């Protein structure tokens, strides 16, 4: 028997079910006895806005001149009950992110950029900082289950109030801020001992269910003499029902955050396995408003994985009145960049990423508080890596770019107002996206699930 009877194999077969990622997961679980906690949003491939395309104008529709003709982006939120609705120059807002998860410098940068481009920014789980109130012309104040730092004076000096039921990264879960980020200032704002691993409540302390929520919203209205718009934010799960209940409870604005939405810290199992994609949630939310004949009366903001001008345009065409961005905003500030800019020079941050066991482009270590580019940190040295001036400049550029892309697409579809974009302007590229968004597959009249097939 010669050696030729045993041919040398050239392929090694990896298991599909027990691939390297799964082996890593099991080994980590065995080593630590505790689930993984991380930041950012779902990383898995999901049907998203990239799976939709616009039908630009041609012979059957008439386009607008791309550079010369007016295309309005003005956005008004909170017209249902509030006597002082929010008026924004663009339909792109900054999502709620806490001081604590972000540094005070970052909160100030968000406010400055938002003010310059005429949009709103939002507080987070941990109260309102002076920096963000002073730098933000329009500031939305969140009322969260934890009520950390919640203060009637801040309610009165806010421009709108957002009742947070849940968030797309973790619908059904409360906030989390690990001890290394609970600095003395953060701890004082939240009335907690410094350095503890803070785990927020997932339910509000003083109301349970939609009938109670209606009374809670009325309290906030009475407190503000019915002036300020009240938003209700839900993480995307049973979105059709949740949006209906939010409307029933008296919301002026409903915010729907899909599963691609980010967080500064939560269990990975939560981020990847709870909630539905933004695309599916958006369609359900719009259906709920249309079912109640409340489209245009209650405004809809969608968030969770909105990255680009085309994403904004598609969200608006599907029926959103505005979008909210968190992770894209942080990336514009420098999140996951290989360097940071300090004292007039770029500094390589690769070594700091390596210490965290990651690399630029892969980092989701917001929960550690050791952000190599100084964004999601409370560390006195690291936070100096992002100054409000530089951050605001980059963020302003990003928001301007998104808005220009949005109007470019709207004009190509023949719209003088970005809010005139409509579902009829969109088709889907994949069967999954067509089914979730209930739009026809491109080149066909087929909407999966409709008309019985």
């Amino acid at each position, binding site marked *: 028997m010669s050696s030729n009877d045993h041919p040398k194999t050239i392929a090694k077969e990896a298991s599909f079910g027990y691939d390297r990622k799964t082996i890593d997961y099991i080994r980590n679980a065995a080593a630590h006895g505790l689930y993984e906690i991380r930041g950012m949003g779902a990383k898995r491939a999901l049907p998203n806005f990239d799976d939709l395309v616009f039908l630009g104008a041609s012979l059957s529709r008439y386009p607008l001149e791309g550079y010369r003709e007016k295309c309005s982006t003005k956005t008004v939120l909170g017209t249902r009950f509030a006597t002082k609705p929010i008026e924004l120059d663009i339909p792109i807002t900054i999502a709620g992110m806490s001081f604590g998860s972000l540094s005070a410098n970052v909160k100030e940068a968000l406010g400055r950029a938002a003010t310059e481009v005429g949009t709103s920014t939002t507080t987070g789980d941990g109260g309102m900082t002076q920096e963000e109130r002073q730098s933000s012309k329009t500031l939305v104040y969140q009322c969260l289950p934890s009520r950390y730092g919640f203060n009637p004076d801040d309610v009165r000096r806010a421009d709108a109030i957002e009742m947070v039921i849940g968030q797309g990264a973790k619908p059904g879960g409360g906030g989390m801020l690990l001890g290394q980020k609970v600095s003395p200032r953060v701890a004082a704002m939240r009335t907690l001992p410094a350095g503890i691993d803070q785990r927020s409540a997932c339910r509000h302390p003083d109301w349970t269910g939609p009938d109670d929520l209606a009374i809670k919203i009325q*309290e906030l209205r009475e407190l503000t003499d019915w002036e300020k718009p009240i938003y209700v934010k839900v993480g995307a799960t049973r979105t059709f029902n949740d949006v209906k209940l939010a409307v029933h409870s008296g919301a002026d604005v409903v915010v729907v955050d899909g599963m691609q939405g980010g967080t500064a810290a939560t269990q990975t199992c939560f981020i990847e396995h709870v909630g539905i994609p933004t695309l599916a949630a958006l369609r359900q939310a719009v259906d709920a408003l249309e079912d109640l004949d409340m489209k245009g009366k209650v405004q809809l903001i969608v968030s969770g994985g909105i990255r680009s001008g085309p994403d904004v345009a598609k969200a608006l065409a599907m029926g959103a009145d505005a979008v909210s961005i968190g992770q894209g905003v942080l990336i514009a500030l420098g999140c996951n960049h290989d360097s940071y800019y300090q004292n007039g020079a770029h500094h390589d941050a690769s070594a700091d990423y390596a210490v965290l066991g990651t690399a630029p482009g892969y980092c989701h270590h917001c929960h550690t508080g050791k952000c190599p580019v100084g964004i999601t940190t409370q560390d006195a040295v690291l936070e100096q890596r992002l100054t409000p001036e530089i951050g605001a400049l980059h963020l302003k550029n990003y928001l301007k770019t998104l808005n220009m892309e949005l109007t470019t697409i709207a004009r190509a579809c023949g719209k003088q107002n970005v809010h005139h974009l409509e579902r009829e302007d969109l088709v889907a590229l994949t069967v999954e996206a067509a089914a979730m968004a209930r739009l026809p597959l491109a080149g066909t009249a087929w909407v999966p699930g409709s008309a019985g097939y």
Partner: protein
Amino acid sequence: MERMSFDLAQTPLRELNSFLHRDAPVKGVQKVVVTNPDGAHNIAVGLDCPVDVEVHGHAGYYAGGMNKTGTVTIFGSAGTGVAENMMSGRVHVKGFASNGAGASMHGGLLVIDGDAGLRCGISLKGGDIVVGGSVGSFSAFMAQAGRMVICGDAGDALGDSLYEAVLYVRGSIKSLGADARIEPMGEADLATVKELLDAAGMQHNPKDFKRVASARSLYHWNADADQEY
């Protein structure tokens, strides 16, 4: 104008609250009497001046909510979330209080002469709560700071996931929540209980109270502990 009356059978709630926010601070109003509340929600929410509001009858949800420097006295019972998120001042319920009384209070004094329902003092962040009767289950859940004096009994899971708030209970405790433990009463505790009973106008012997505080074992993730709390 030192005294104003609002009959909620005749006047919409919005007029009362708007008066308390806009007129009371500038017109030097000292007392506002509310009649026929008939369980209306959100009576006297968001007070921001040292006005004295008397509610003659039962109040609904969130009476005296987010109070700052005002005084609200309810000659009747109060619904869910009475004095929720109070910053300072005083809210006194002469009857009973429903769920979530004093939820997330940051300061001030809440006195309940009768019993309080579930989750009394949940998420407490400061200030003091004195309950003449008993409190329901899950009271002082995740209470972060402040003090609670319970002259009657406490239900299940008292002080679950407590932070730095301290609870004093005169009667029986059906069960303690995770991380809550009974600690010995020191001289400072006796003085605290006496001070709070005096402030609430209640007479008991401070030595009859037990102290409940956090064992602080949940402050940090611990992989070796069974996560069964």
